[in-house]
């Protein structure tokens, strides 16, 4: 086949950190979350009383703590990328493990929150506010799990020495995804837990 090759290979040049394909994915995810957020906001505008009342039943503390956990975890990921750029592969994988632990803390707190609501008998059909609260946070929750899986793969590969200062696209790819999960939560927390 190479015998009839007539054109040179072209590389993607976007300058984006990590693999270009993950960014397509990230933009698509942002779009979905954006639509979901706006659906929440505009539905709320028609049921202000209901939303304000039931927003009070949310555990704002656990929401705030989870925000701190996620941004801290995101910071660890930044340090992991930093480390691999200095060719410190072992250090990189250590930072990633810390970041994954952060994700784990988020998951535990979130599960406690869900189970508390479950114990109160709250379901998707209870009312529109809870429908949005559960849908949005659960959808985000799944992204945290997904991000943890991605970071775990990257951490193992970093530990094995698959990345270097020259070639660490994989680390940046995983990092970009994790920051997206963080970025979305940064909007979600005030929107659902605080604004009224």
């Amino acid at each position, binding site marked *: 086949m*190479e*015998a009839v090759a007539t054109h040179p290979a072209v590389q993607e040049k976007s300058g984006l950190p990590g693999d270009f394909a993950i960014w397509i994915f990230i933009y*698509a995810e942002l779009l979905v979350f954006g639509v979901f957020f706006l659906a929440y906001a505009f539905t709320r505008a028609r049921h202000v009383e209901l939303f304000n009342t039931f927003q009070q039943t949310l555990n704002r503390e656990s929401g705030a703590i989870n925000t701190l956990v996620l941004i801290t975890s995101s910071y660890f990921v930044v340090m992991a990328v930093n480390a691999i750029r200095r060719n410190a592969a072992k250090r990189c994988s250590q930072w990633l493990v810390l970041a994954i632990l952060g994700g784990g803390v988020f998951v535990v707190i979130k599960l406690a929150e869900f189970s508390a609501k479950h114990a109160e008998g709250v379901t998707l059909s209870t009312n529109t506010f809870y429908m949005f609260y559960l849908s949005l946070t659960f959808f985000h929750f799944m992204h945290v799990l997904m991000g943890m899986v991605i970071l775990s793969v990257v951490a193992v590969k970093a530990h094995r020495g698959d990345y270097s200062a020259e070639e660490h696209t994989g680390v940046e790819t995983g990092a970009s995804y994790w920051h997206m999960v963080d970025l979305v939560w940064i909007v979600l927390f005030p929107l659902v837990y605080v604004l009224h």
Partner: protein
Amino acid sequence: MKYSSQAVAKPYFIAAIGLFVGQIVFGLVMGLQYVWGDFLFPEIPFNVARMVHTNLLIVWLLFGFMGAAYYLVPEEAERELHSPLLAKVLFWIFLVAGALTILGYLLVPYARLAELTMNDLLPTMGREFLEQPTITKIGIVIVALGFLYNIGMTILAGRKTVVNLVLLTGLLGLAVFFLFSFYVPDNLVLDKYFWWWVVHLWVEGVWELILGALLAFVLIKITGVDREVIEKWLYIIIAMSLITGLIGTGHHFYWIGTPGYWQWWGSIFSAMEPIPFFMMTVFAFNMVNRRRREHPNKAAMLWALGTAVMSFLGAGVWGFLHTLAPVNYYTHGTQITAAHGHMAFYGAYVMIVLTVISYAMPKLRGEEAANPRAQVVEMWSFWLMTVSMVFITLFLTGAGVLQVWMQRYTDVPQAFMVVQDKIAIFYWLREAAGAVFMTGLILYVISFFVTGEKRESVSAGVPDTA
């Protein structure tokens, strides 16, 4: 053709095309019955023609998918098919079972068919698209299992490529989700759930994996772009298809007795379903623009690009048109659904099967590509079928919009048949476009028999290593 066992794909492709012709014949019959109610009555009532039209579509697409898999899997796995004999045996079982089922629809009343096939032992008949007698369904499962075993063993023993694994996942999902067709709950809401878990999870879920894998394979072959680049895109596309497609099932759950949150989940996620199709379009054109070789099979490239565009339009845009709950409230079950169904099935699944056939058939006949004259005829058939399908879709959309306007979105709704009379002109136009489609299809069949001067040696001595 690199492995002799790939040859088993050929009868599958031929059967697929043959049944495709049958499907279109019945499409034309029904199209006429829309405006000439007792055409062919009582020999072929409308409901029977419709059943034959849709069932033939499904069966020939399955033939196409299986043929494509038999061609593609050995080449990707870099070894012979596990058992070519099994593939041949299953072909005849599937063809005979399919033919008998269609004959059953045509020759005996449906209720009698149910009796004859002992439907009462395990009742599964009577649901739209899943009308097959229970024994046919069992036959489909047996064929699917044998087929999966065959290609699964080939893949496991050989080189594991992303294309192969995605294809296998899609085919496995196809078989697994079909099992829901054996369960028919008495509760109507549950019944709809299980029905959609076959119908929706096929065409908006696992079939998209098959589509993605087949398109990726053909693009790797005809563009010569690095496998890594194409596989990466394939990953992203199927991830998006699955997320949006699986949760998007909710767009079938509006107002059928299901919880209200489905209106939100269904609307938001299915509104995102065009994204992976759009990515597929960008991806296909991107790969072709970066091609590192000039493949002599121009027709296959045209089909591949056509698939990318038409699936986005048919599945993506026309699906989005009526997927949001407040819109669907007025449009469900109108001709808008039919418009979407026609262009989506043609654009996504008909065209991808024809893409693979276009690429693989010359190879199966010992050439790199069909001769230029045959390719010209094939490309004519491409344009005739594709453009006429666009018109069929537009006419049905027009009919659907008027239908909604006069019958649904109004303070003074008119009776169903009154409205049908008023939009009859669109049905006539649709039938005319259908006749053009048939012409295109006949040309397509002819293109396989067009002879021309032998191509100048492009294929000779060039190893196919992609």
